[in-house]
């Protein structure tokens, strides 16, 4: 018998914490004399070598997924959370009303929302939906609590940057109302003024809690006026 006996575990019942529990007792490794041990020791080593040999000689067991070569075929699972985005309809309109539920739900203050009364709609409109990619933990609570299905998590992951400040930006591409309000505005002229286009790095990003408080949002140069 070898030193380690895979079937050497003993089953029994024990009284623990006021309950009887079915336990499995670990097999003990016993020494049985010099020659026996040397022989079975050698045998165990050869067993290990037999296990690894097929791996060393064949290529069929290789499981590597070659990123970036496989980039064309690489699909993330649809639920995979790696980046927060707005859900947009075909015309690029979002459904965020600026209700701040996500801001409140966020455990670490990664979401900062600036809102204003819309001139046309008179409703609360999101001006800037600032997301701190550098601090987000992708806990999904913002998406989970959003009552308007305005947010989703996307699975793209290629976001490495040279400057940390590039990781704080606006999610909304326009400052303006919720998608359904667009259709209610009939006047063409009013529709044009309904929304103002903003770029991801427009405006000062309030990086509260970092050593770079109030630094410009742009990578180089001045921060845009908000």
């Amino acid at each position: 018998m070898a030193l380690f006996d895979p079937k050497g575990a003993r089953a029994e019942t024990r009284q623990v914490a006021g309950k009887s529990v079915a336990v499995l007792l670990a097999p003990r490794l016993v020494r049985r004399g010099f020659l026996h041990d040397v022989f079975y020791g050698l045998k165990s080593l050869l067993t290990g070598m037999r296990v690894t040999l097929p791996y060393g000689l064949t290529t069929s067991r290789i499981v590597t997924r070659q990123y970036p070569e496989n980039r064309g075929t690489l699909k993330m699972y649809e639920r995979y959370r790696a980046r927060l985005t707005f859900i947009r309809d075909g015309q690029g309109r979002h459904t965020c009303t600026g209700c701040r539920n996500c801001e409140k739900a966020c455990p670490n203050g990664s979401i900062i929302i600036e809102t204003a009364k819309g001139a046309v709609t008179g409703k609360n409109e999101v001006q800037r939906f600032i997301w701190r990619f550098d601090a987000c933990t992708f806990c999904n609570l913002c998406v989970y609590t959003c009552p308007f299905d305005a947010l989703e998590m996307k699975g793209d992951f290629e976001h490495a940057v040279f400057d940390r400040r590039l990781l704080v930006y606006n999610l909304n591409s326009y400052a303006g109302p919720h998608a359904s309000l667009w259709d209610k505005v009939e006047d063409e002229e009013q529709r044009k003024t309904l929304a103002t286009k903003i770029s991801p790095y427009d405006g000062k990003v309030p990086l509260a809690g970092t050593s770079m408080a109030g630094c410009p949002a742009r990578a180089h140069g001045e921060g845009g006026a908000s």
Partner: protein
Amino acid sequence: MGLKIIDDFPGVAMKVPGGSVMLGVMDAVINWARANSLWPLSFGTSCCAIEMLMATGAPHQDMARFGAEVARPSPRQADLLVVAGTIVKRMAPTLRTLYEQMAEPRYVMATGACAISGGPFIYNNYSVVRGADEIIPVDVYVPGCPPRPEAFFYALLTLQRMIRSGDSLKSRHVHKRPVMSALPAGITVADIQEELRDLLERDSAVDVEKEAAAGPWAGKGYC
């Protein structure tokens, strides 16, 4: 620091006919070698270490493909310091020491929210340092919590691009960064911050948009 001739070396070589070509080739070769042989320091503090140093080396991802599987336990032999995980105040001097003990040239990658900004531990927290760049200069930031292994590879490619575009012979410290003075005993994180703020300003000279647009992995703009 160093012999006179060594500091003047590129200039001396320039006088040789065709010297600049030779230098250019040498530069390219050295940068190629450095970019393709990034040995990471086996350093990780928390969750990100599992993804960034272990899962990336694991069969499904295999960072050996990039020649980066030679994780060195000693900072002397490592090229890449992957700050994987939260850095707390008590760890800060250690991180600084490790960085300083690495042999030149050395590169730093901050992976995950904690290493970039303190992540979930920014507010109401007495212990977590808000970003590794308060302690050491960081070359590449990889957002995620933790980022997935492929994100690490993307960051590695980004770093490789940075190294390739460097001028390794003329600026012997990659990035033109001064070697920062040692961390004397009793210094606080606040003391380092001052120094680092300057460094970060200089860092922003890297043209990120150009970098992002140049490569085959471009076109991944936000929103």
